[in-house]
């Protein structure tokens, strides 16, 4: 039994959304997704999976605040305390097992409501061993990882700058990417260094939005369309919660990808994957994640980036949507925006940034201070 994407909908993505609250953001995305799938949520949906983290929301027990705005009251509902792609994995299993024919997956970000973003991230740090050390923004934790990565893999600052340049310029062709900009490597290198070796422009600023997918089994999919996009594989993996045993080298993404590739029967990702949307909430993370997804070999990723291999018109486009550097940090909806871009590209609905592709990968990380992440492979 294969699992298909029946419909997608989204709201945003914007730097802020003063007119809608988070429930209305979800509603907007959901209404669009149901229209896209041509279903009636009150009749056709068997299960609803939301992805959220209480501390991002500002209240406890998030799962009690759904499913009304998704049209899912009086139905099986659960919240996965993680990224959208974990929700896709959950829905995939519910459909594969025969438990449900049609499952809705949702994630959102109303990051602009969070007045103390740094403080919330600090709450995720080990309170006994780490949280109270120094007074810096917890972005320092990512900068430490970057320091290790660039020294281990001989990455230079021009190569990191190329990631910012590529993604912000890609974002100019995406009307839902508020941080698009015509920047050059020189601009990046001249911009402020805030967590040396990390520059401010390498950190994705937050943004708001919601993503809803309607997933269904093969039979339902065939009734709706002759050319569905399939969820070919899902994978997720955690290293450890302890900084002393973390790889600081995206082992989580490597293992999650292995799991997803196995399901998708992909044996040579660098050849079989046509494009990828990866987590680039810090510019160096894109390079690290490309390697972890086995789309390039260690030590060659930086130079491939400079040669344009991962550009929109390159051999293996990465973050054509603009990535997080162009779209923003969407919190738990980060993987949702990535999966959305993959589906739009596979359907041929990506407008001016359309590329030719049959297989695409979406990947998300659990953000600072974790070593966990997830991968989904989509194809036609």
């Amino acid at each position: 039994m294969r699992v298909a994407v029946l419909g997608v909908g989204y709201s945003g993505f914007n730097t802020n959304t003063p007119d809608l609250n988070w429930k209305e953001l979800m509603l907007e995305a959901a209404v669009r997704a149901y229209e896209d799938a041509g279903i009636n949520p009150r009749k056709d949906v068997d299960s609803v999976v939301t992805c959220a983290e209480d501390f991002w929301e500002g209240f406890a027990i998030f799962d009690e605040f759904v499913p009304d705005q998704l049209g899912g009251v009086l139905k099986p509902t659960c919240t996965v305390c993680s990224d959208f792609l974990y929700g896709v994995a959950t829905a995939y299993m519910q459909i594969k097992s025969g438990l449900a024919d049609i499952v809705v997956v949702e994630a959102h970000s109303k990051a602009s409501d969070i007045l103390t973003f740094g403080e919330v991230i600090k709450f995720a740090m080990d309170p006994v061993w780490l949280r109270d050390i120094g007074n810096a923004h917890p972005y320092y934790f990512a900068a430490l990882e970057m320091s290790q990565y660039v020294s281990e893999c001989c990455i230079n600052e021009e190569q990191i700058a190329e990631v910012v340049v590529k993604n912000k310029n890609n974002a100019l062709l995406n009307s839902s990417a508020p941080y698009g900009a015509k920047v050059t490597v020189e601009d990046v290198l001249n911009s402020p260094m805030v967590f040396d070796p990390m520059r401010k422009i390498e950190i994705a600023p937050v943004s708001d939005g919601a993503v809803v997918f309607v997933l269904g089994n093969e039979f339902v999919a065939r009734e709706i369309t002759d050319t569905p996009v399939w969820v070919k594989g899902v994978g997720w993996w955690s290293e450890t919660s302890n900084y002393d045993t973390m790889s600081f080298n995206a082992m989580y993404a490597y293992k999650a990808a292995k799991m997803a590739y196995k399901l998708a029967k992909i044996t040579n990702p660098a050849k079989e994957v046509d494009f990828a949307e990866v987590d680039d909430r810090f510019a160096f993370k894109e390079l690290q994640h490309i390697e972890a997804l086995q789309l390039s070999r260690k030590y060659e990723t930086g130079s491939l980036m400079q040669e344009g291999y991962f550009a929109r018109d390159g051999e293996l486009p990465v973050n054509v949507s603009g990535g997080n550097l162009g779209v923003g940090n969407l919190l738990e909806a980060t993987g949702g925006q990535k999966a959305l871009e993959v589906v739009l590209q596979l359907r041929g609905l990506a407008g001016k940034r359309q590329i030719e592709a049959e297989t695409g990968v979406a990947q998300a990380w659990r953000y600072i201070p974790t070593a966990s992440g997830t991968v989904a492979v989509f194809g036609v």
Partner: protein
Amino acid sequence: MFNEKIVDPAELRHWGGKIELYWIYTSGEAGDRFFKALRDEGKFIAAKCKKCGRVYFPPRMYCEFDFSETEYQEISGKGRVRAYTVAWLDKDEKPLEKPEIYAIIDMEGTDGCMIHLLGEVEEDQVEIGMEVEPVLRDKSEREGTINDILYFKPS
């Protein structure tokens, strides 16, 4: 449906909320041992897995790879810088009065490391591979927390 939206920004409504939350964070068996030894004797404790021999720092009462018990042992507290960053912004993304240097320090005699601050060194003098040693708060001021270590300095 759903076409009624607020278009006048002057009408927009929100209210400011805050969450006041307080905890005590239990240091745990291993943490208690570590912080008492640090506070009372200025010593560093690590934990060795009885099965695989991996030496954990920070110490803990179980090996996460074997899921088996550990035993405690004293270490020097010295280490070597594996990675570092010079942080210029505080938690609200405002400039810090003085930049702070954070480092991942591989701890001598262990397979583990510590994330902490570096001190008594200029930002441009820090190097990966640099040997460092801990500087502790004066004994009378120690509280049995991670901040009893003020920073690590070049040794």
